[in-house]
């Protein structure tokens, strides 16, 4: 029973996608038509929401480890303290930002009526009051506009934006930058003339690297870029298409096997629990 329920949980959503594909998003029964696209919209909402609902698992996993290190005073406890402190600081930054954003939204909502009133007199390239329309506003509407303008004209430290721009982004891009070092060392270490295959791979890479560089183009008067172009457009593209055709068939086959409940080890129930 459990196995069948689990299989049904795989089968139903996958079948909906298949149904949408085979019917073109609508079922036609003679002149009558049943639109199936709301199904697609429901799924496109459910997937991210359900994914996010699992976030508690990550919180439990992370803080059980670092919390235990702190409580039991393990050797790595200072680093666990840094983890917890940086979590708290970042969380505070994001929450503080939400309060600021809420205040901004409140002011915008209050000024919405006034903005609607003056809309026809606003020039996008020079949205500077005062103009004739303001004379028709009530005192409250004018005050709301002035409050909003005062808020937007003043500086507000936005901690979350600061974190995203000056902490998160540089960290992520520097981690990616490490790959530049690694690929240099990997090429130096791995590209040796040990076999025909290794030699061929190395030569192909060298042609593409040098051919894609202005120096290679200048030294070879455009010959190396042409070879690199040929390597990419013809040989690599042919290899990719050949592999992709096979991978496409394999992906369909494996997806079908999962759909039909033939693939074990994906989501499994032990026989004795069945």
């Amino acid at each position: 029973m459990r196995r069948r329920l689990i299989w049904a949980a795989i089968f139903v959503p996958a079948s909906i996608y298949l149904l949408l594909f085979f019917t073109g998003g609508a079922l036609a029964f003679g002149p009558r038509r049943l639109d199936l696209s709301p199904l697609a919209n429901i799924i496109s909402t459910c997937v991210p929401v359900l994914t996010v609902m699992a976030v508690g698992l990550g919180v439990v996993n992370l803080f059980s480890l670092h919390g235990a290190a702190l409580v039991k005073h393990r050797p790595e406890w200072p680093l666990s303290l840094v983890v917890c402190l940086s979590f708290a600081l970042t969380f505070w930054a994001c929450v503080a930002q939400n309060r600021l954003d809420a205040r901004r939204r409140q002011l915008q909502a209050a000024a919405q009526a006034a903005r609607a009133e003056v809309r026809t007199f606003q020039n996008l390239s020079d949205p500077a009051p005062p103009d004739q329309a303001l004379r028709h506003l009530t005192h409250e509407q004018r005050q709301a506009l002035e409050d909003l303008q005062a808020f937007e004209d003043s500086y507000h430290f936005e901690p979350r934006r600061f974190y995203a721009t000056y902490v998160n982004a540089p960290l992520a891009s520097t981690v990616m930058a490490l790959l530049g070092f690694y690929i240099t060392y990997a090429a130096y270490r791995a590209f040796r003339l040990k076999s025909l295959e290794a030699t061929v791979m190395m030569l192909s890479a060298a042609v593409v690297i040098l051919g894609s560089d202005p120096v290679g183009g200048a030294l070879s008067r455009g010959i190396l870029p042409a070879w690199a172009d040929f390597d990419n457009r013809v040989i690599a593209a042919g290899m990719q298409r050949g592999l992709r055709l096979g991978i496409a068939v394999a992906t369909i086959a494996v997806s079908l096997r999962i759909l039909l409940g033939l693939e074990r080890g994906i989501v499994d129930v032990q026989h004795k629990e069945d």
Partner: protein
Amino acid sequence: MTILQLLQRLQQIDRRIIYLALVTVLSLPFFVEYALPVYPDTCTRQTFTALEQLFSDPQTRRKIVFIISNWGPGTSGENGPQFEVLLRHVLRRRMRFIFLTTADDPIFIESAQLGVQRAIGAEQRRALAAGQPLPEWTYGVDYLNLGMLPAPVFASIADTLLTRTLSLVPIDYVLRRPLTPENFPLLENFRGPQDIALVLVVSAGDEAADVCGIVQSQLPTLKVATATMGIVATDLYALVRSGQLCGLINSARGAAEYLSLIDPGAPTMPLENSMSLGKLLLLFLVLLGNVAFLLTRHLQRAGGLPSAELPRRPLAPLPRKLVLALFAGLIAGYVACTAIEVFRTTHYGVVRQRLPRPGDDPAGRYAPYERVSLGALRSQAQQLSGAREPDRAAALARREFARLLESRIGEFVAAILTLGVLAFLIGDNRFYRVTEAIIIGSGMAYFLVEKWDKVLRPLWVEPIAAAATGAAPRTGMLWLLLLLPGSLWYFVYARRLRWLNQLIVALFVGFAIGPEFQKQVGLMLPQIIDTIRPVWPLTVDGTGRLTLDAVRLEHLIFVIVLVLCLCYFIFFFRPRGRAGTGLLTAGRLALMVGFGALFGNTVNTRLAWLAPRIGFIWQEWIGKLFAT
């Protein structure tokens, strides 16, 4: 040390020495400027021609360019120049455009917004240098920023994004106004995909393949072009050949090539020079390693020694004193830079980018940064707003000053974190461990908040709240039912009811495999049909002579490689005899050539990620210290 030992050492140079050499080489172009010739490749030329024809066609000029900008600071080394150069082409031909991102981080749309401003600035500088009047582009009339439309998987949103855009995006990102033609005149001519002249995808991934496979398969007249990283671009060449993509810009090199087509004679930038030197160092190291390898083998054979594999050596920790000296120097340097910046800001003002001005000497070279005081900002604000609102001008100036100061402080924070991550390269150390702990803790908090803000609240909480308050139909309350499957995640902790957790996992298996059927078939069929072309390279021309058709010859080679690679993965095929073994060997060699090309493209991409970080340290963090 014997020669043999020396040669063996040359094959196993300590990786940290190589890293140091790489940093040195990448840093040089930021101090010494020089120009290199650029040779645009076939694909870049074709892209330029295709876009030029599109932008000149009276039919398409009335339509808009739809830009999907899915890149951020992490891939700005490649995507930044690509975005800027393509946008310059769009701006120069006065094509109207809208842009958005499907990434769920505001930094992506802000990178795009900054890219638009840089492209406008570059076009303005070019116009000034050419003696033309300063061109202008108006937000809402010439271009529009639709902001973020988060989609964890682009394929799931690709169709709706292009066929029902305005139903997905309620307000614009800059002015936060409803998307109506009254608010934004650009929208008068944008109703749906029929009003899109070109879909331009600038990203770090292969979203263009999803657009082709899912959307273009239903709308075959839709023109799609993309600019992406080298490693992804190699995947997409096949789509260019099949005509599904009308243009492809490959990595930062492609951007430089495209720039040479829209601005012939423009010099190469320090970033491009830096990557060039990095590639040359890589090739030199490969050459060094192979020369040492071949000489070692020769000496071993000459000496009658067996040629043995070099033993793997673990990464030896650096001497403690060296590590301490390094970190002491780093801290001292950082403190000194901070002191200099504090002094100069206090005395001369805060640093900002210098923008072109109408009075600039077209032949002059101006520093990229300048310092500006609060008083100077106030004067500039008063000039812009006139004498009408002196108080407002003062407030705007204070805001601008505070933002510039915040930006500079942020750069100092970014610098120390950058150095912390780079410390990983010398091996396990405390500095790196602390940085890693900050990454884990802050990453968790940011992840929680982002998921709440970008997914849970807009897609689930707000519809339910609206339904509960009567602002939306009561059926919205049905979303509460998602709590049932959502709670199943936590049954993994339950002993007896653990199997319930497998239900939600199974549901996601279904969600994962469902779209694959359409996607794979949508990608596969055009590629099969495109492969069917004439391949016989010998043709007879008008005078009756036999000529070699290069395009057909290329296609013949393409088909041979395709057949070999496809045959290599026939699992029940067992090589019998020389023919079968030969076929497998040929297939393996074709694979190795292809993977070598992929590796080569990736080198471009990875160095395009590294060079901007080196550039940030030298040009932005330290370079701005000395702005006047």
